[in-house]
């Protein structure tokens, strides 16, 4: 075959192009309903999620009050944040909160799920009891725990006094404030996590446990060699979700401590709120939001890569 013939064969003829156009048109017409239905979701995402994200990136480099003209300020918003003592405190507290939340909020629900899974009586009742706190609105939970933590006549200190045990300042001391908020967060959120763990546990084939028992494995060995490996994917995914969620803690410090005492509980998200709605520094708020966004994005990508590599 000559070169000319070969090129001619590769070039679409007029009639071939028309046919392709017809095919596309027919395909579009056949799926019009689907595309239109998709459009609603896409428009909503574009308006309320993607556009604000892009806008936040732009605002991070601007000074604006949303009424007058915005001005480009380069990296000034970021420089101001780095010079702010609250910035360091917010990241330190958030990382500390996440660390405690992983230690307590990850282990406790898993152990509870294992215990619930092993129960033979009143299973439903205990599941309900564990899940009940999830149904309490977060603000109500925070107000309730604020009373629990009242050093004067709060539930915890009253109980400790009745038992002749030393009391604590709970959220009113810089040394115990973050840990106290982690307890609130764990109590209010663990119901959902326990249910997911329970579902994963119930998906483990019973014959694996039987085989382990026949091999003479005790309960701890069964958990270590059967339960944990079988629920590994759920555990890893929940850990990622939990880290992303706890890095964005807001309700507990906002309602219970107002970020105090002495910035001991101010979180990154709470500082974003303060920059935007207390200091009216929208550029600073967006710059901090971008930092959190990038940090969580890199962390998630790294985490997912690591867990996939280990598969």
């Amino acid at each position, binding site marked *: 075959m000559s070169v000319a013939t070969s090129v001619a064969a590769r070039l679409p003829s007029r009639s071939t192009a028309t046919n392709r156009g017809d095919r596309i048109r027919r395909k579009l017409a056949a799926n*019009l309903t689907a595309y239109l239905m998709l459009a609603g979701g896409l428009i909503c995402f574009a308006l309320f999620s993607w556009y604000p994200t892009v806008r936040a990136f732009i605002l991070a480099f601007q000074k604006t009050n*949303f*009424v007058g003209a915005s001005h480009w300020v380069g990296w000034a918003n970021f420089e101001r944040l780095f010079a702010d003592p609250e910035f360091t405190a917010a990241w330190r507290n958030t990382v500390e909160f996440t660390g405690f939340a992983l230690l307590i909020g990850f282990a406790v629900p898993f152990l509870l799920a294992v215990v619930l899974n092993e129960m033979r009586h009143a299973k439903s009742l205990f599941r309900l009891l564990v899940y009940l706190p999830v149904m309490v609105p977060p603000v109500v939970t925070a107000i309730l725990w604020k009373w629990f933590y009242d050093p004067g006549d709060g539930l915890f200190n009253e109980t400790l006094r009745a038992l002749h045990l030393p009391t604590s300042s709970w959220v009113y001391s810089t040394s115990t404030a973050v840990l106290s908020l982690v307890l609130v967060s764990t109590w209010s959120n663990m119901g959902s996590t326990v249910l997911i763990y329970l579902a994963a546990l119930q998906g483990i084939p019973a014959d694996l446990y039987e085989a382990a028992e026949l091999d003479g494995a005790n309960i701890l060995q069964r958990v270590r060699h059967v339960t944990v490996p079988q629920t590994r994917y759920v555990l890893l995914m929940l850990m990622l979700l939990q880290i992303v969620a706890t890095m964005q803690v807001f309700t507990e410090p906002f309602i219970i*401590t107002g970020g105090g005492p*002495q910035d001991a509980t101010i979180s990154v998200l709470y500082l974003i709120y303060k920059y935007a709605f*207390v200091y009216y520094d929208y550029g600073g708020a967006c710059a901090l939001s971008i930092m959190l966004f990038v940090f969580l994005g890199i962390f998630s990508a790294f985490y997912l890569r690591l867990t996939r590599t280990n598969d």
Partner: protein
Amino acid sequence: MRTPTSSRLAVLAVTAGCVLTLVACSSSSGSTSANGDVSITVNCEPPTSDPIDRKNFTDDIASFEKSHPTIQITPKDEYPCDDPKTFEAKLAGGQMENVFYVYDTDVAQVINNGQAADISSYISGVKGLDDIQPSTLSVFKDSSGKYYGLPKTNYSMGLIYNRSLFTQAGLDPNTPPTTWAQVQADSKKISALGNGIVGYADYSSGNQGGWHFTAEIYSRGGSMVTSDGKHANFDTAAGKAVLQNLQQMRWTDNSMGSKQLLTQSDVMPMMGSGKLGMYIAAPDNLPTIVKQYGGSYDNLSIGPMPGAKATLLGGDGYMFNVKDTAAQIQAGVQWLEYENLTPGLGQFNYQRAAAEKTPVGLPEPDLWNGAMATSDAQAKAKYANVPQQNYAAFQAAMQTLPGKIEPPDAQQIYSVLDNVMSGVLTSQNADINGLLSDASTKVNTLLANQ
């Protein structure tokens, strides 16, 4: 049977509906017609949970529209009236009402941002304008003398105290403390009553710690910012004295209780339930303590701000949307004059208030000087239904005690000072010098960024 075409049409209709709804949401409010009729929107209509105030507001609008037939007012029920979270967005999105409520602390920023209309040429007809206390009116004025709003209420800080606890502690309820040393001594005696009673409480959260720090440093003759408003000026002997006094009461005397990070919504229930001896506040706290938290007017007094060098002034008012037409501003000014600035009408309709058994006779708002003040005081005395003698010390002090308005960018500064107050009240060994120095640096950064 539904055809594919009809389902496509349905989807198109839903999509179009969503788009139209979004477009409709962005339309502005209020209008001026060619025949001279003008309609305005006004926010801060009392909520339905406060039926008496809401009815009064609605009745006032009806009466006003009757006497001003070309003006139509559309009230907007919003709570809180001035919400920083939506304020800028509403202005930017053209959703801000024609006449909008604002705290004194936000006025300067709204003016500086060009978010309010200049109403200087529309207010000359307001009766009694010259009698409004200069410190209250000047809040709505910029440095060149232009006006951007009108006041609704004003307040000055004093010391609210529980008369019964004073008596039980061996103190004279008719002689409130006038120095901070006396407050400390009285607080110690009151807390010695035991049973969970706190002698003196102070705020340290929700920007309110900084607000009280400001009131307390003013009372000692200090200031928050330099006279040009560009730098922090509270890392001084007066600032240290405020914190040292609190530190002693909290940790040495143990007369402030162990629960801290308090805000107004924590302290008012303590006062209403008889568990608190004293706290600094404005007289407008009294009705809330009685109405919501079980206090009684007979048992509550307000004395002058301890320290006696100056007292913090504050308040609220209304400003005008920068996009308002001349006719809308004129209509808004007339409405505000009717509702907020005329003795015997609107918020000063004492006869109606007394008939509704709402409190009449509280020391504030105290908007006027001269003839208007006399007229207001007489009307108030005629219908008074609260024990005015309980406020005598406060009112006597107000004749001589200088008032001092809040600093620029007040809410931002208050937020920073929360940290200082919470530091002293939650940490026995708090480094007062370090706290003040850090806060000073932060406030300087904030002020430089405005």
